[in-house]
């Protein structure tokens, strides 16, 4: 699992307009620069916000990626709920720390 690098990419995308431009024009090249699993790459490319939540991405980073990807606030919240229903409990990260459910 490389949750750290998923989160690092989202952190940098939110802060670095040049990286964002590169990501928009050649997503694969940017993703290649990070140590990511197949599942993480799939979740980032689709994007599958629900799966990213289940993989453990901190909401304070995920919400910016969702907004960047065109999600409205209610769509973002719903995507996380759908993710937990489809993929199961949060697997890692801050929301898995206690009960693994994160979403209740």
């Amino acid at each position, binding site marked *: 699992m490389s949750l*750290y690098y998923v*989160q*690092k990419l989202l*952190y940098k995308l*939110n*802060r670095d307009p040049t990286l964002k431009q590169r990501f928009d024009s050649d997503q694969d090249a940017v993703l290649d620069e990070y140590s990511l699993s197949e599942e993480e790459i799939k979740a980032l490319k689709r994007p599958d916000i629900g799966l990213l*939540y289940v993989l453990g991405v*901190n*909401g*304070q*980073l*995920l*919400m910016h990626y969702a907004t960047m990807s065109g999600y409205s606030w209610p769509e973002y*919240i719903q995507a*996380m*709920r759908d993710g*937990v229903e489809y993929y199961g409990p949060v697997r890692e990260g*801050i*929301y898995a*720390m*206690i*009960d693994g459910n*994160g*979403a*209740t």
Partner: protein
Amino acid sequence: MSLVYAGTCCHSPGITSRGELADPEIRQQLLQAFDRQRQAIEDADTQAIVMVSSEHFANFFMDNMPTYSIGMADEYEGPIEDPDWLKVPHTRIPANPDLSLRIIQQVLQSVDVSYAQEWKFDHGMAVPLHFLTPDYKIPIIPVNINCQNPPFSPLSRTWELGKALRRAIDIAPERIALIGTGGTSHWPCTPDSGRINESWDNEMINHLINKRKEALLAYTDEAIYQQAGPGGYEVRTSICIAAATEEQTGEIWFFAPIPIFATTCCITTLYQLE
């Protein structure tokens, strides 16, 4: 003695970005309480505000996450969020690097902190400043406590940070206000966003104004997560201010759960010149 005022306030981005969606009467009362705090800071002839917040990955990340950090820049800017979304105009915020240096040197006598000469404020500081220093004339010394991603500092160490800040403020000749932002229950950016635990908030705020050190330090991260959500980790900012002002009983100036702002909005005064 150079502490002239201390208190806490809420920093929910909803207060500015979704202001019109709240009950107008409640929001008006909240804005009046913010204005009362602004007035208290001004009436104390405040020359600098030390603002303790928990930023949300605007500057700090897990590649080298500081448990505590204090700003020492020549100036700051914010908000980092889209100003049209937050409805807080992007602006430069005045600093006092010389005072920062003296505070950092003094705090380091007892608590390890990192310092930062670059800092973009997010809503955790930008929303309170929008109400407390609307003309951005008072220099700000930002202090950050990591409350976003564990491992977090033990609450007992956060208490010591508050004590260290107070010692540093007390030997500075400047008239300084100390403000903590955030701290009530919330589940930000999660499927539970909007959930509020009013009774937890009410109990915590009463511990806070009565400076009940034992009760405040008895919280565990597990219990905070279950009862106050991941946003509840920000109680560290409030505990820090309580520690800095332990000798006085505080007052609650505003307390109301406001679901559209995703938290209980609260404004307290924890120290005033007598």
